[in-house]
């Protein structure tokens, strides 16, 4: 236990230097390669300087995670889980969705999914779940090593799939599973639903105290909630810079830069990072530097990204002057978190975590999409019809029609999957996107 704790702390202290050295080595070798092949002109603006810091931050999180089990209590949590309650109790949080996205980016998913399918999980199930279960079955991860959980924490505000997925994990790891069940919100949440979520948050404290062996310090909880709210506000500020023309970054950048608000929400490192990012984006604004070189059209992206093809898609679009100025997915992390009140972590937390885009009615969703379209001056939208995410995809056919009618923009639906490349036909997909872009001429 002492040794594990020492390793965990050491990874935190020495990790940044080690990661910077690795990054320096990587850039050095890449520089050599570039000079040999000769690079083509990129349709993108100069890369954000913060990218290095982002990589360092997220890599450090995973590096520390390698030594977390046995050193500190470890919780595996869903992205929409009220993590604020676990932080004061010293939990190291692992986000299987974030980790699955990492698997998607490095194109490990077919292999992982095959392993899950061999155990009987159908290919029609969410590809995040298949990726994660595949990692557990094969005992592999692109992160080096994931710490075993002491507690599994799942909140149904993003979907009910996470409940079935985490039940499978609970059985595999034989650890307690805490469920925060959030009734769906039509308009305003019903008082007895808020009370229900609140009482579950209070039940969570008891379980988390038991697992961590610590007592909840309410002052610390308020500090975490304050930081979490501030983090959401800062993330919102970063996103809002893209309202300018040209947008200083792309929505695709946003998918990657949302890592800290998902996985490190409530920590000072998260907020420090977003201050840095915001300042850099504002600096780019003042100097007229765009996320893409020649921004002619601005699009809205709805739903999760296709992690395995983000570069492919964004390049195809950027080459023709199209930029995803905003995405409903990244925006979600800026909206709910700011509603939380440090003075009332449980009551406001219950309400805040219920009012997530996917836990609200489609009328609300349409309101968000029209507001984003207007605020970010979008003249088109791509609705990613995501086979793996039904709560996000149900209703898109109607949303498409209404966005076209009410906002007078061009909208296309693109069917794929957020993590499984086998559900994406690259050439027909590119053809459809190209035809869509030609319609703007």
């Amino acid at each position, binding site marked *: 236990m002492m040794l594990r704790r020492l390793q965990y702390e050491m990874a935190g202290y020495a990790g940044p230097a080690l990661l910077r050295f690795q990054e320096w080595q990587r850039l050095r070798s890449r520089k050599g390669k570039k000079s040999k092949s000769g690079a083509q002109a990129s349709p993108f603006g100069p890369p954000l300087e913060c990218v290095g810091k982002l990589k360092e931050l997220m890599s450090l999180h995973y590096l520390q995670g390698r030594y977390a089990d046995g050193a500190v209590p470890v919780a595996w949590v869903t992205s929409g889980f009220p993590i604020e309650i676990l932080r004061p109790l010293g939990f190291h949080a692992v986000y299987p969705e974030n980790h699955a996205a990492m698997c998607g980016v490095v194109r490990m998913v077919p292999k992982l999914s095959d392993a899950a399918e061999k155990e009987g999980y159908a290919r029609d199930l969410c590809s995040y779940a298949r990726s994660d279960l595949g990692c557990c079955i094969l005992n592999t991860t692109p992160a080096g090593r994931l710490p075993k959980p002491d507690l599994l924490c799942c909140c149904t505000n993003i979907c009910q799939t996470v409940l079935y997925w985490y039940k499978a994990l609970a059985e595999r790891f034989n650890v307690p599973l805490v469920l925060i069940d959030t009734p769906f919100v039509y308009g305003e949440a019903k008082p007895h639903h808020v009370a229900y979520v609140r009482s*579950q948050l209070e039940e969570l404290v008891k379980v988390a105290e038991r697992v961590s062996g610590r007592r909840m310090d309410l002052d610390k909880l308020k500090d975490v909630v304050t930081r979490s709210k501030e983090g959401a506000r800062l993330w919102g500020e970063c996103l809002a810079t893209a309202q300018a023309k040209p947008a200083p970054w792309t929505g695709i950048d946003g998918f990657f830069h949302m890592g800290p608000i998902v996985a490190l929400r409530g920590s000072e490192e998260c907020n420090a990072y977003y201050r840095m990012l915001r300042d850099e984006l504002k600096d780019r604004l003042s100097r007229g530097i765009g996320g893409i070189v020649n921004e002619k059209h601005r699009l809205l992206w709805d739903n999760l990204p296709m992690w395995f093809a983000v570069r492919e898609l964004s390049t195809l679009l950027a080459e023709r002057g199209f930029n995803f100025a905003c995405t409903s997915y990244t925006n979600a992390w800026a909206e709910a978190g700011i509603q939380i009140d440090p003075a009332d972590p449980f009551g406001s937390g219950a309400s805040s975590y219920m009012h997530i885009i996917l836990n609200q009615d489609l009328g609300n969703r349409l309101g968000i999409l029209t507001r984003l379209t207007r605020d970010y001056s979008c003249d088109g939208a791509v609705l990613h019809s995501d086979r793996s995410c*039904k709560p996000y995809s149900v209703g898109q056919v*109607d949303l498409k029609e209404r966005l076209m009618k009410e906002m007078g923009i061009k909208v296309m639906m693109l069917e794929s999957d957020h993590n499984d490349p086998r559900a994406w036909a690259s050439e027909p997909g590119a053809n459809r996107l190209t035809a869509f872009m030609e319609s703007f001429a």
Partner: protein
Amino acid sequence: MTNSPGSISRGTYALRQKKEHDRRCLAVLPIYYPKELLTAFDILAVELWGPPGPPCGDGAGRLQSYVCSVVRNALAFLQSGQADAMDGALFPHTCDSLQGMATLVTDFGGWSKKSFVFQHPRGSDRESAKVCVEQELRSLAGELEAWTGKPLDLKRLQWALDLHREIDACRATLLDQRARCPLNDVELYELLRRGEWLWPEEHLEELRRAVQALASSPIQKGIPIMVTGYVPEPEGILAALGNAGAYVAGDDYAAVGRRVSRSAKHLKGDPWAELVERYGSVAPCPTRNAESGMRMQYLKSLCKSSGACGVLVHVQKFCEPELFDIPDIRKTFAAIGVPVLVVEGDLEQTLSGQTETRLEAFVEMLSTAGRPS
């Protein structure tokens, strides 16, 4: 509503109920809802499991092809006006797709009449969930009072609870004593599924008659199997099993056996507490966050008590709650040497020849392998 045993369809029956008894009719989506409360308000519940077959009308195109056909068909059905005999619709929040459909039709059209939702909490054994269930039931009762213009009569609610308890007891008897029942699977399931739309008192009468007709000793000659899944559709699956020489001895269909309340305490004098109790006393269901170990234990005991020598897992395509449990089901029964066959059904399609052949091969294998020790 064309799923019509005998000569009458659900829609025609509903119209007759309105005319002869001045009852309101409510289309109800799967799976769990407080039917006792509707009965107490003199509302006829007409369940909408799809219906099966190709979706009628354009409404199905509003949902992607990877959304389960129970939901796609139901949307198309409502939107095409085929449920116009209904006065309203009730959407239990069973899964993400049904939840999405509930907001889709109310926010963007497809169902212009009154809509109710029933948001049952996951993990109903938790104290917070029990409190929430009762409040949700009271909230729904309040909405029904406003809709019908009638206050809820607690004596009538108690009467409805007693009525549904007896219905469940009869259904449990027929399912548990399957081998003594002279009906074949097609006939038995037609009878049991009439409970999805008949006025409960009428359904109880036919159930009583079926219970009285039970033989004193087992008369079913085929290979007994247990089935777990969502809904026995396409219907041809039951006939195919019969033709192959098997019969359903143990039922864990969400639409049928899984909803039978067997262990609810009789809490005379407190109908709300009894309603909550009944809600929590049905068999473990993945859509309600049943603890996995508990569900597997239940399935094993059902298999044993029914004398089934094989398990048919009959899932609807894209039904996540059911699909996630398949590995566990396989493992559980492999450990006790009971063969398992997984068949994916799709409400939109008839039973394929391939599936029929797989069923035949499975039953043939069971008939030569003998029963588990």
